[in-house]
């Protein structure tokens, strides 16, 4: 029996387990790419608009850090600049989680032990995971190439293939990275965290390389400095899709994959099943006093995630705040862009519109925090921890209330933090950091009712449809996101847009807030929370 015996069977098993996830990934990436490219083509329809965009992007350090090096004034170059970073991070994380799910998670839950005792080779599990994830990346990239070529009225096919391959390359590279991290830690959480940290590091290296890069003489292009070349996230930009493709750079992620897989096999050969290279840590033999309550427990279980979110929101906030000043400068230089933006939405100060859009973006992202934190209630119920807790003197109402309260407290803190850091970033370059921090903190807080509704939706689903609550909660958030981001581009009717709570929160500071929508949202949220809690109090658990 070879070390690969059983690979094909395990591959089919993984495909069977993930048929829905993989389907969403493979079809969703092209759809998202299509929607984004179409919207970019709509916003920058002519050469003048794109020239303005390219010069601003090439000179703005924030744009370079977040969007990467702009490669010219072609529509394709603008599409890449606007979509690459988002899609690259997305496929990097999708690939990471998928690899870990089919390797380390199987070991952690003991499924690998069951499989390993049957006719399955030592490398079969890892190989099957690699086949599935690399395959998904290839298929998603093929779909994306087609979508880009179809989307932007006049995007050339070769460039679309290069752009999609660049994105797929990022996924392939992090498939390799995750294959290694899955060998290192005992827990799948740890392996995911390690690989996600690698994604973050790659993003930072790429950002640094592009910030320190050189602007071309005509001002519409950036040549990245060396740090971009050591980042798998940077390689995709170096493909230069649509602007004189350098096809050979696509070999870089493949080479990384090959090296990483060789390393992963070597590690797998040297370790025991279920073991990692990092030993499990020990902890206190007694609980701290603050831990000994449902609230203390919720804090203990959430604090790691909350800290991670706070770092992300803070970095984003300061960057977006600094960018607000550059936005002002761009408007001053470029009256055409100013007109275009003014036409897109709202009167008043243009920079307020920008800031409002950013705060709206934070609120959407923090919605994911609410869903993630609150769905722990379902995880606890499904794996049996809840049974142990409810058999103590903790009532269902108190337990659920604590979980909802903790998630909302965390979300409120993140929202305020996002507003305050944005204000600080803006104020540090434009003056009056304290005043701006206070004003934007307040403006951010106005988004809270939308998050209350998100929490209400999750709670109601948990109470009424516990088995479906995980899938439906994330679906609801995705619908809110798509309505907000693509609703206008796709010209959906207002009735559809109104389904999202984010539609109703006032776009402060661009718009003066009024009380009625906030009151209505809060009332809706309260109704959902009460309905969810009442249903939970009257149903069997576990169910």
């Amino acid at each position, binding site marked *: 029996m070879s070390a690969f015996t059983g690979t094909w069977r395990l591959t089919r098993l993984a495909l069977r387990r993930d048929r829905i996830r993989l389907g969403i990934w493979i079809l969703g990436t092209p759809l998202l790419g299509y929607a984004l490219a179409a919207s970019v083509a709509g916003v920058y329809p002519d050469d003048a608009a794109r020239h303005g965009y390219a010069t601003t992007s090439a000179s703005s350090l924030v744009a370079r850090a977040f969007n990467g090096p702009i490669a010219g004034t072609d529509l394709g170059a603008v599409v890449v600049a606007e979509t690459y970073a988002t899609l690259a991070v997305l496929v990097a994380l999708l690939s990471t989680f998928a690899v870990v799910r089919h390797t380390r998670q199987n070991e952690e839950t003991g499924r690998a032990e069951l499989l390993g005792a049957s006719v399955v080779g030592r490398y079969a599990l890892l190989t099957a995971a690699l086949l599935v994830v690399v395959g998904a990346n290839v298929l998603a990239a093929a779909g994306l190439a087609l979508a880009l070529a179809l989307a932007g009225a006049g995007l050339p096919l070769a460039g679309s293939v290069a752009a999609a391959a660049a994105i797929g390359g990022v996924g392939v590279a992090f498939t390799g990275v995750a294959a290694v991290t899955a060998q290192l830690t005992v827990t799948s959480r740890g392996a995911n965290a390690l690989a996600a940290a690698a994604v973050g590091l790659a993003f930072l290296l790429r950002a640094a390389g592009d910030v320190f890069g050189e602007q071309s003489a005509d001002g519409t292009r950036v040549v990245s400095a060396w740090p971009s070349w050591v980042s798998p996230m940077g390689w995709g930009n170096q493909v230069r899709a649509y602007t004189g493709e350098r096809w050979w750079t696509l070999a870089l992620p493949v080479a990384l994959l090959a090296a990483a897989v060789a390393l992963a096999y070597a590690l797998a050969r040297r370790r025991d099943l279920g073991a990692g290279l990092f030993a499990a840590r020990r902890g206190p033999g007694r609980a701290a006093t603050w831990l*000994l309550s449902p609230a203390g427990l919720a804090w203990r279980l959430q604090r790691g995630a909350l800290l991670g979110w706070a770092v992300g929101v803070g970095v984003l906030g300061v960057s977006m705040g600094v960018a607000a000043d550059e936005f002002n400068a761009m408007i001053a230089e470029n009256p055409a862009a100013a007109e275009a933006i003014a036409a897109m939405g709202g009167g008043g100060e243009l920079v307020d519109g920008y800031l409002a859009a950013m705060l709206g973006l934070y609120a959407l992202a923090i919605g994911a925090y609410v869903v993630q934190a609150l769905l722990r209630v379902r995880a606890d119920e499904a794996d049996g921890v809840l049974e142990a807790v409810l*058999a103590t003197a903790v009532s269902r109402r108190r337990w659920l209330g604590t979980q909802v309260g903790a998630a909302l407290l965390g979300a409120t803190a993140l929202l305020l933090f996002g507003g305050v850091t944005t204000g600080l970033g803006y104020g540090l370059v434009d003056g009056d950091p304290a005043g701006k921090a206070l004003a934007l903190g307040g403006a951010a807080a106005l988004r809270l009712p939308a998050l209350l509704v998100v929490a209400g939706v999750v709670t109601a689903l948990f109470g009424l449809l516990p088995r479906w609550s995980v899938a439906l909660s994330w679906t609801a958030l995705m619908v809110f996101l798509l309505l907000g981001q693509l609703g206008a581009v796709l010209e959906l009717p207002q009735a559809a847009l109104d389904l999202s709570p984010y539609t109703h929160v006032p776009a402060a500071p661009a718009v003066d807030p009024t009380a009625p929508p906030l009151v209505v949202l809060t009332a809706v949220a309260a109704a959902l929370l009460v309905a969810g809690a009442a249903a939970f109090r009257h149903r069997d*658990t576990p169910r």
Partner: protein
Amino acid sequence: MAVIAIDKLVKTFGAVRALDELDLRVEAGEVHGFLGPNGAGKSTTIRILLGLLRRDSGEARVLDADPWRDAVRLHRRLAYVPGDVSLWPNLTGGEAIDLLGKLRGGLDRRRRDELLERFDLDPTRTCRTYSKGNRQKVAIVAAFASDVELYVLDEPTSGLDPLMESVFQEQVRRIRGEGGTVLLSSHVLAEVEALCDRVSIIREGRTVESGTLTELRHLTRTAVTVETARPLTGLAELPGVHSVRETGGRTHLEVEPAHLDELLGHLVRFGVRALTSAPPTLEQLFLRHYGAEGAAVAEQRATETPAALR
């Protein structure tokens, strides 16, 4: 006063009738064995007693309170060890014990430390790294370190080694000595025999037998093997005698305890040379109640022959 009083309890899950007019009575101060094959409804009954599941009909009282309505008040007075213990993977065992104890209303610190030592459990390891047996120890320590009136234990020792099993039994005896009541669901028959004052056997959601072990034994046949000077005759006409069979001059049979006397009177007339009589083992007792196939297996084992009788 009965600590647990269940009458005609019914619980359905969709089309499945998990509990079908189940009765159960656990008196104060007793260790009550709760037995039945997998899927008989033991865990469902326990979850109703804990107010986790809602009954469809029938009566269920725990410590003279309604387990669904008065759940919180009740839970201060009882401790529960689930059959399949899951814990918070990133908390240590010690933290989980303290947390569960505190949520129940507090635990005895001295006894907690003593139990950790007796059960040989390292409280500084995270729950993620515990085996099934160690996770069970966490739940057992958290339960036994609490001073409560009722302990509900759902197959608490299925992952423990024999050494730990004896520590467990010693703790159950301590609880009974202090006047506590224990409902013990278990498949470990030696444990049931060693600990339980009374047992209830359930099958397909119904109580099929309830009483002390001695009472239950009386309901079951005794296996007899006899060798006589003259060939035995007339056994088939005797009341209460079953499964008569001859091998190599010996006769094997089963007799109902009530008719043992008549059988012996009959046997002595043939010149008894050797006689062994075995009371039903607990295993036979349970197998008889666990199902039709179980009964066949029990009889087969009782006579130690590979071929099925009848």
